[in-house]
């Protein structure tokens, strides 16, 4: 983990030297705000991957929840109904994913990839290409406002990080998730109710995607069917750069936050330095490979001296 922090420091240093505007507090806060949004959508996903699962429907789920939340706010005018609709939709999708993976034993890749298509279908049918826009300022503050100088999504991120950290380290549930990720059959034969734990994980992932959907709605001040689709790959990249392994049993939320920060730094740096946009995927790809290299070297090092 400490190697990855050094990695982030190096990137910040490099960007700070090359662009005067980078190292200003307002820009760093700006980066933190953008990173916390990726973190929120990827936090639930992290726990699913720790449990050796996979949730490709995060992006689509986020988009649908944002649309339902928007419709709810427009219909009832109250923000709480928007929150409720968004998170409820997220939970419902997560639950469905969990049931498919555990009870119907559909492999996680196919279950959530199939769910992704179905959610898009529902979203296109529901929105019919329209957008719902124009929300009250206090709702929009949730996404783009700040409190005591710190962007509100950053508070939400810290709450998510603390809650996630406590769940994984200080509760028996958390440790059981790591055991399931490491060897699901051994966990089952150790009396851990693997089925219900995984359903809990997928539901949690759905709930976080739903919550992130509401925050994105507040930030964008509008909802359309396509919000979620570009958010899937960054969420997965953030989790993987953060050192959580797809085979399960290792990694955590702190890593995902660092992954989200690294991804946002790349975009922020490219914008500030005015580098032609066509170079963006190239730089992101190289950063992902470097992070993976650091991760495998530290892992092999740790293995030798365990």
């Amino acid at each position, binding site marked *: 983990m400490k190697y990855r922090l050094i990695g982030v420091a190096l990137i910040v240093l490099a960007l700070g030297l090359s*662009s005067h*505007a*980078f190292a*200003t507090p307002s*820009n760093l806060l*700006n980066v933190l*705000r*953008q990173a916390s949004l990726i973190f929120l959508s990827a936090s639930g996903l992290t726990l699913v991957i720790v449990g*050796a699962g996979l949730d490709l429907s995060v992006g689509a789920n986020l988009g649908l929840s944002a649309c339902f939340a928007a419709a709810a706010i427009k219909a009832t005018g109250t923000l709480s109904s928007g929150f409720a609709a968004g998170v409820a939709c997220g939970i419902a999708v997560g639950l469905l994913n969990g049931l498919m993976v*555990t*009870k*119907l*034993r559909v*492999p*996680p890749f196919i279950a959530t990839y199939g769910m992704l*298509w179905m959610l898009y279908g529902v979203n*296109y049918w529901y*929105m*019919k*290409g*329209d*957008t719902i*826009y*124009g929300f009250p300022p206090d709702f*929009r503050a949730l996404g*783009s*406002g700040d409190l005591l100088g710190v962007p509100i999504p950053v508070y939400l991120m810290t709450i998510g990080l603390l809650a996630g950290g406590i769940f994984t380290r200080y509760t028996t549930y958390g440790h059981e998730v*790591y055991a*399931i*990720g*490491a*060897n*699901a*059959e051994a966990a*089952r034969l150790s009396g851990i109710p693997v*089925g219900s734990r995984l359903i809990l994980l997928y539901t949690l992932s759905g709930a976080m995607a739903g919550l992130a959907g509401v925050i*994105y709605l507040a*930030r*964008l001040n*509008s909802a*359309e*069917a*396509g919000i979620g*689709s*570009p958010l899937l790959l960054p969420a997965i990249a953030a989790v993987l750069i953060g050192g959580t392994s797809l*085979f*399960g*049993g*290792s990694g955590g939320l702190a890593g995902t936050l660092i992954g989200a920060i690294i991804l946002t730094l790349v*975009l*922020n740096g*490219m*914008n*500030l330095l*005015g580098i032609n*946009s*066509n170079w*963006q995927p190239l730089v992101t790809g190289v950063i992902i490979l470097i992070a993976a290299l650091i991760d495998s070297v530290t*892992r092999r090092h*740790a293995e030798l001296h365990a």
Partner: protein
Amino acid sequence: MLNCMPDERALYMTSAGSLKFAFNGLVLLIAALVLAACGESGNKSPETTRESVALFTKNQTNPYFQTIRVAAQAAATELNVDLVNYIPTSNDSIPEQMSQIEDAITKHPSAVVFVPVDSKAMIPGVEKFNAAGIPVINLIDRSDGGEFVSFMGCDDYAVALNTARYLFEKMNGKGNVIIIEGQGGSSNNQKRVSGFKKALEDFPSVKLLASQTGNFQRAMALQVTENLLQAHPQIDGILAANDAMALGAIEALDAANRKALVIGVNGTKEAIDAVKAGKLLATGDCDGFVQGCMGTMAAVRHLKNLPVPKEVIFPITVFNSTNYQGADVPYEQRMCPKWESIVKN
């Protein structure tokens, strides 16, 4: 912690019952899907007397194309013609639009109104229509090849140029601006950005600080604008390659309580409302609703071998705080204009 090889499909205790229930549920769902399908195509049995027009649009999510589809349907019902929509399942997917062209040919529509995903890549598709003897109206984005009955659309380059000029005039010719580009690889993004750049040449004292991509997405445009606001303390104007990105930029400005004149392209309803509210300076377009109507009308006229001009360039209107009136009516209530009112010659 290291990684090891857990069994991806862990063996849990599942009662076969829950599986059976889920499977029956699924079969019912598929059956419902099929019934809905045959219900749909039932009334469109092949021996219909009504002509059928196939409308190809680029994606499901951009409200601009929803306007086109609503308008085309309005014209189709008015002219008593069937309208069949072909929209790729993954947005702006070139191979998928190509497949949809081939599939549509087997249905042999009477005429096609075609909005290409990419001006060059879709040429073989149009040639397939020509080979099948199906008349094609090229709508909105000009395809660089294949025969068309007529091209009806507006020139992205000109729209961008005029809207940018309007912005620079409003900035009375000086100040700093940034450009938010569209998706790398899309042809109308190339045309609009070059239109912006041409306008810049006409106003030498307007300085271009940066040109970054927002991928035609509101969220990314917001993030890019936030970043650029950090780098450039003084930004007077923002040129966005479509309305969604313009509105994203506005959100970023509000959040950072900075002021700048923002322009967009497409003239979507939301953009018109933003112009009305004074947040968006202007949005250039040739009125998507009118184009949707004219596309279908042109197709029907051709089938009735009424004259259809080879090319119809819609007048470019830069909707700003003065002239947005007609455009903010919801599409459902709007009526298609008369053919003669648009086509002079």
